[in-house]
C-alpha cells in the first residue's frame, strides 16, 4: 500500500515535471525522493528517441497499437522540453522553442526514424599503444546486415594515429622518371626513412586510418582498454543538427539529452560532418 502511494506521488511529480514546463524546477526542488528522479531520467538512447517522438507514456510503456496518443503533438512538446541539457547556456530558450515548433509543426512534423540513417555514434575510447595510453575516437553507424542490423565502425580519429603519418603536402622525395630502367632498385631509398615514406605515394593519396587501427590491433601494438564516452550526432531532422549525450547527475535533468543544437542548411551538412569526423584538423 505504502509502495503504491509512493508510486502515485512519483507519477504526480513527473506529471508536474512534464506538464508545467516553466515552473517544474521549483516544484520538483522540494521533492527529495530518489525514484522520481529515476523516472524522469532518460534511461536509454532508445528512450530518448521514444520521448522525442512521443511513442511511450510517462512510465516508459509503449502506447498500445493504434492509440491516438502515439506521436501526438501536444504531449510531444512537453517531452521535448525535458530532453535538453538544462545546464548548457548555449541551448537558449529561443533556440529550443524554434526547434520544438519546427519538429512539432502539425502540417509536417519531424520524427527520428531509427532505420533511416542520418545519425551516427562517436565513441571515445582508450587503448595501449606500444605500452602508452592513447585516446582514440571511433565513429560507428547502424548498418543492415544479413538478417538484422549491427553497429559498424566507419571512421577513426586519434592524434597519435594521425600523427604517425605526415600530413604536410610538401613532397621533396620521389622516384625519378627513369627508375624503371634500373628495375626500381632505388626503392630502397624510399623505405630508408619511414618519416618521409608518404612522399612516394601518388599525389592525392589518402591514408585510411581505420585500416591502420585494424592493422595495429592485429600486430599487437594496440590493445583496447576502455570506453570513456559516447555521443550521438543526429542529422536526420531536416534543417537541424543536434548531438545527444548521457548526463549522469543527481538531478531531474539527467540521462540522454540534447547537448548541442544548431540550425543546419542541407548544403552545409557535408562540411559539418567532416568537422565532426575531425577531417579538418
Amino acid at each position, binding site marked *: 500500500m505504502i*509502495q503504491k502511494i*509512493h*508510486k502515485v506521488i512519483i507519477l504526480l511529480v513527473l506529471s508536474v515535471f512534464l506538464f508545467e514546463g516553466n515552473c517544474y524546477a521549483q516544484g520538483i526542488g522540494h521533492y527529495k525522493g*530518489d*525514484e522520481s528522479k*529515476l*523516472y524522469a531520467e532518460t*534511461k*536509454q538512447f*532508445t*528512450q530518448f528517441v521514444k520521448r522525442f517522438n512521443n511513442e511511450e507514456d510517462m512510465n*516508459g510503456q*509503449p502506447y*498500445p*497499437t493504434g492509440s491516438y496518443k502515439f506521436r501526438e503533438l501536444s504531449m510531444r512538446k512537453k517531452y521535448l522540453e525535458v530532453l535538453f541539457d538544462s545546464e548548457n547556456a548555449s541551448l537558449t530558450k529561443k533556440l529550443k522553442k524554434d526547434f520544438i515548433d519546427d519538429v512539432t509543426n502539425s502540417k509536417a512534423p519531424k520524427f527520428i526514424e531509427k*532505420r533511416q540513417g542520418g545519425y551516427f555514434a562517436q565513441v571515445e575510447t*582508450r587503448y595501449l599503444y606500444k605500452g602508452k595510453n592513447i585516446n582514440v575516437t571511433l565513429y560507428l553507424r547502424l548498418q*543492415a*546486415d*544479413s*538478417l*538484422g*542490423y*549491427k553497429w559498424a565502425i566507419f571512421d577513426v580519429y586519434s592524434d597519435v594515429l594521425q600523427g604517425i603519418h605526415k600530413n604536410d603536402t610538401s613532397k621533396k622525395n620521389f622516384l625519378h622518371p627513369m627508375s624503371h630502367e634500373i628495375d626500381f632498385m632505388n626503392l630502397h631509398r624510399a623505405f630508408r626513412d619511414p618519416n618521409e615514406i608518404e612522399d612516394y605515394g601518388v599525389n592525392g593519396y589518402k591514408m585510411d586510418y581505420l585500416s591502420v587501427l585494424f592493422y595495429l590491433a592485429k600486430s599487437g601494438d594496440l590493445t583496447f*582498454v*576502455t*570506453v*570513456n*564516452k559516447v555521443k550521438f550526432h543526429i542529422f536526420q531532422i531536416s534543417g537541424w543538427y543536434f548531438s545527444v549525450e548521457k548526463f*549522469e547527475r*543527481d538531478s531531474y535533468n539527467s540521462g540522454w539529452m540534447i547537448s548541442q543544437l544548431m540550425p543546419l542548411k542541407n548544403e552545409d551538412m557535408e562540411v559539418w560532418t567532416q568537422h565532426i569526423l575531425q577531417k579538418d584538423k
Partner: protein
Amino acid sequence: MTNMKSIKTLSILFLCLLGLQVFGQDTPKEEPPMPPARKAAIDSLALEKVHDLSKYISKIGDKETSFSEASRVIERALELFVDDAQIGVSTLGKSQIRYFAIKKYLERLNKLNYKSVNIEWFDIQYISDLEKQPDGKYVGVITIYQKFTGVTEDGMVYKDITKKDITIYVERKTTQIGGREIGFWDVLLGDIKVSETKKG
C-alpha cells in the same frame, strides 16, 4: 525474330532481378514488429532471469553460504548468461569502464565475504525494443536500478545505488515433446553495464 526479341527481353529482366537480389542482400527484410503480447511475455521472462541473478548474487555474497554452495550457485548463475558475457563497471565521477568476466565477478563477490548482502530493487525498469541482429537473434537492453547493502564482519556497511543496463538475447528455439516439435522463446543474459549512480 519476335522470339529472339522475347528471349532477349526475358534475359534482361532475369539479369535485372538477379541484380536486385544482390543489392537486396545487404538489407534485411522489414519484418512487422513483434506483437505486443509476445514482447510482454519475453520481457517478463527476461525480468525473471534478472531477478534470479539478483537472488544468486545475494546468496553468493552472503558469508552464511558455504564455499561449495556458493560454487554451485555461481554455476547456476552462469547458466543465465551467454558465453563470454562480461560485466563493465563504471564508478561515480569516472567515465571509464572496468571489465570483468561474469565468473570472475561472482567469485570476487564471494571472496569479499560480507556478513550479509541485501539487494533492493527500485520500482523502475526500462525495457528497450528487441532488435534483430545479423544472425537472426533478437537483442534488447533492460535498465534497472538497485541498492546494494553489504555488511562486513566488523559491522562496516557498504552501500551503493547502481544503474544496471543488462543485455538480453532472445532466440526462437524448438524442442521435441512426445514426437511433436514445439517452438519456444529462449532468453539469455549478456553483457551488463553497471554504473554507480550514488553512494548509499
